[in-house]
């Protein structure tokens, strides 16, 4: 990699690092894992920087890498946990209204990794249905169906917050 490319890479990453960490945390709700995910993302972006820097939408590309890293990690983790730990307790249901950070945290934890990613991309990062579908490599219909419940509860949140 040329020196100028490397400088470009450093500038690009440093501008977005905080945003990626925030997004990763929303996906996994654990700062250690979040930083692991961002490190993996940075590594992959560096390896493919020539391709990334000429991409039509670098941010969507980076978000795709981060999201895929999360889905890969959660898949591995769930298999490990499934094999090593006790079954997850059931008996808790998704709250009807999201009025505080605790209920949002519970909602996110109750969702599967892909649904959680849909919710974060759509309602935190403000990606459109089509952009979300492209990032997660799923259909627009799947994005709509998976985000419908979250949209409903977040609308309730907006009302309760007066926004």
């Amino acid at each position, binding site marked *: 990699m040329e020196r100028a490319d*490397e400088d470009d890479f*450093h500038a690009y990453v440093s501008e977005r690092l905080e945003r990626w960490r*925030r997004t990763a945390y929303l996906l996994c709700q654990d700062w250690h894992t979040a930083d*692991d995910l961002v490190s993996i993302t940075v590594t992959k972006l560096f390896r493919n920087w020539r391709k990334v820097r000429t991409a039509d939408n670098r941010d969507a590309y980076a978000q795709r890498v981060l999201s895929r890293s999360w889905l890969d990690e959660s898949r591995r983790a769930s298999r490990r946990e499934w*094999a*090593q730990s006790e079954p997850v307790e059931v008996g808790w249901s998704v709250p009807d209204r999201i009025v505080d950070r605790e209920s949002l945290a519970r909602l996110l934890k109750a969702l599967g990794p892909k649904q959680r990613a849909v919710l974060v991309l759509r309602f*935190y990062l403000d990606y459109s249905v089509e952009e979300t579908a492209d990032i997660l490599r799923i259909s627009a219909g799947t994005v709509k169906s998976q985000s419908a419940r979250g949209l409903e509860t*977040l609308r309730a*949140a907006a009302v309760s917050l007066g926004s």
Partner: protein
Amino acid sequence: MGTQLFDQLIGDLPPSSVDVAAIVRREKRRSRTRWFTGVATAVVALSVTTAIGLSMTSSTGTSSPPSAAGGSSPAGTTADTRFALVAYSEESAAASAKRLGAALDAAFRKEAPGATWIFDPEVPGQTGPDGQPPKLSYKVVDGASKKSQELFSGDSGVLNEGRKGSLHLGVNAIDGLGEDGTPQRKAGTCPPSGLPCKAGTAPNGAPTIVLSKAFDAGRVYTAEVALPDGRALRISVNNTFGAGGDGAARQATPLTGAQALAIAVEVASHIKA
């Protein structure tokens, strides 16, 4: 709309442990090593080709007896084909993962002759198309590595006599310590969870266990063998396949717990400290 709540959930960001400069240094080192490896491989290949050519030219029409100092193994001895699982660099980790994957494939074919690898939609990139063994992933050991994370791992769908499920192989990084540094159980010993667990010993003396766990959605067998360096090699087989374990979830696992153990023992027998 809900961004405010998301930000509340995130709260204050702790100091970042993402070391971009270190990542760049490591990747540049990896890139250089790959370049040198490529050049060295080309040089060796050229040398071997030249040597073979010269040898064939000089021995044409003659029948040379085998050289006493030829370097071949003496009769009655076998070469040690075992390999070490090393992950101190990108190259060593990739090479170890490749050898481990080949050992898994060979053990799978030996211990479950009727079974086949199938594409598992839940693990794209690690397996597929049908018939292809899983591609094991790896983590390079560095200061940021979690102590209990799986250093080598891979998943694949498995089909056996009409039963579908998933197989997972995992080798943890450091035995004996959890992520927070607290002691954990030793490899090859039953956990105190109360789950059905059968302890045993591999032909080479390594302790083994087979755990069985039933869920509403299915069943999983986990076979674990202690490796020579104290790490654990695990093979888990379940009867879920695809998203949420639909379809075949109510059927038996494609491999038995005994087969999972046999595969784990066979793979472990190829690994040295």
